[in-house]
């Protein structure tokens, strides 16, 4: 009896379980949100526009990149195209979670789709992978997503107010905040040789193509970096297979 009860969690206990599982990731997102708010207003985006990005786009790294590109005078079309490329990874998350959610109505799928972030994906995918009959587990997704969303709005607002309070933030080097944040995100991602190769090729290409108009060098660098990673992965796989055949 007990094991069946613990599997069939109520909507509210699933919701709070999602909330609790997201606490460490929310702590990580706090400095990120504050720095985004401060950086965005110092990039020349108005406080209302900065809040609008957090409320309607709700995509941390894309928002950071948009602020950086906005500051360097990049056209909207290029910023939107870059956002699309940066957010393509979410398609991977959606294909992972989608099959477990096919019974849900649009009333659920629309907001959960909007609220899908890296953090909520990580905890929700772990929850969905647990065995057992859990018909209310979309409430877990909701608990995680709402927590991330509310936290992101509050932190952006704190950052906006802080950014306005600091006179001439660029002379303090607040622009370095974005670089150091991205470094802290990328380095832990480099867990194997294909990703290392991808990162090096992307960085070198971006450096060489820095003079290209409209930040097109960024997209070229991303494209070559991804191609290098995929190529390295299949080359390494082929080598391993050949060795296995020889052995």
């Amino acid at each position, binding site marked *: 009896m007990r094991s069946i009860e613990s599997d069939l969690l109520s909507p509210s206990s699933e919701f709070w379980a999602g909330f609790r599982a997201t606490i460490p990731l929310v702590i*990580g997102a706090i*400095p990120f949100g504050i720095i985004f708010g401060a950086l965005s207003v110092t990039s020349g*985006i*108005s406080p*209302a*526009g900065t809040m*609008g*990005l957090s409320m309607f*786009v709700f*995509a941390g*790294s894309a928002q950071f990149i*948009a602020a*950086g590109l906005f500051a*360097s005078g990049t056209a*909207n079309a290029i*910023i*939107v195209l870059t*956002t*699309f*490329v*940066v*957010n393509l*990874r*979410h*398609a*991977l998350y*959606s*294909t992972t979670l*989608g099959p477990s959610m096919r019974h849900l109505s*649009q009333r659920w799928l*629309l907001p*959960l*789709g909007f609220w899908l972030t890296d953090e909520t994906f990580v905890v929700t995918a772990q929850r969905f992978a647990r065995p057992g009959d859990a018909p209310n587990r979309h409430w877990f997704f909701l608990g995680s997503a709402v927590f991330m969303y509310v936290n992101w709005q509050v932190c952006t607002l704190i950052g906006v107010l802080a950014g306005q309070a600091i006179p001439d933030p660029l002379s*303090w*080097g607040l622009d*370095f*905040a*974005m*670089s150091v*944040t*991205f*470094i*802290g995100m*990328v*380095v832990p991602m*480099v867990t194997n040789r294909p*990703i290392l190769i991808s*990162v090096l090729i*992307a*960085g*070198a*290409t*971006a450096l060489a193509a820095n003079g290209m108009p409209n930040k097109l*060098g960024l997209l070229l*660098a*991303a494209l070559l*970096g*991804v191609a290098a*990673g*995929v190529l390295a992965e299949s080359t390494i796989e082929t080598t391993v297979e050949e060795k296995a055949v020889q052995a």
Partner: protein
Amino acid sequence: MTGREIALILGMFLVTFGVRYPVLAFASRVELPALVRRSLKYIPAAVLSAIIVPAVLIPDGVYLNASLNNSYLVAGLAAVAISWRTKNLLLTILLGMAIFLGLRLFL
């Protein structure tokens, strides 16, 4: 809020939601090709690196500065080392910014 900002928010909303929602709603009917799935994995790290490297090596946006008096480069390399050792985002941001501001004050 300017008209340009509204257009930017609308455009970014459309492409972000346009990636997240349809695949989630129709994933049971659509199977992404293996090459696409494989490529998607490399996008975040490649895009972020393509932003970081010019930002620290060409801090003024025009001239390459690969010398030790470039605080962006020195603090950036320190941040790579900190992140590699600790894998801690918050610590990397705080120490990286402290090193950067220290270099700016004393150099």
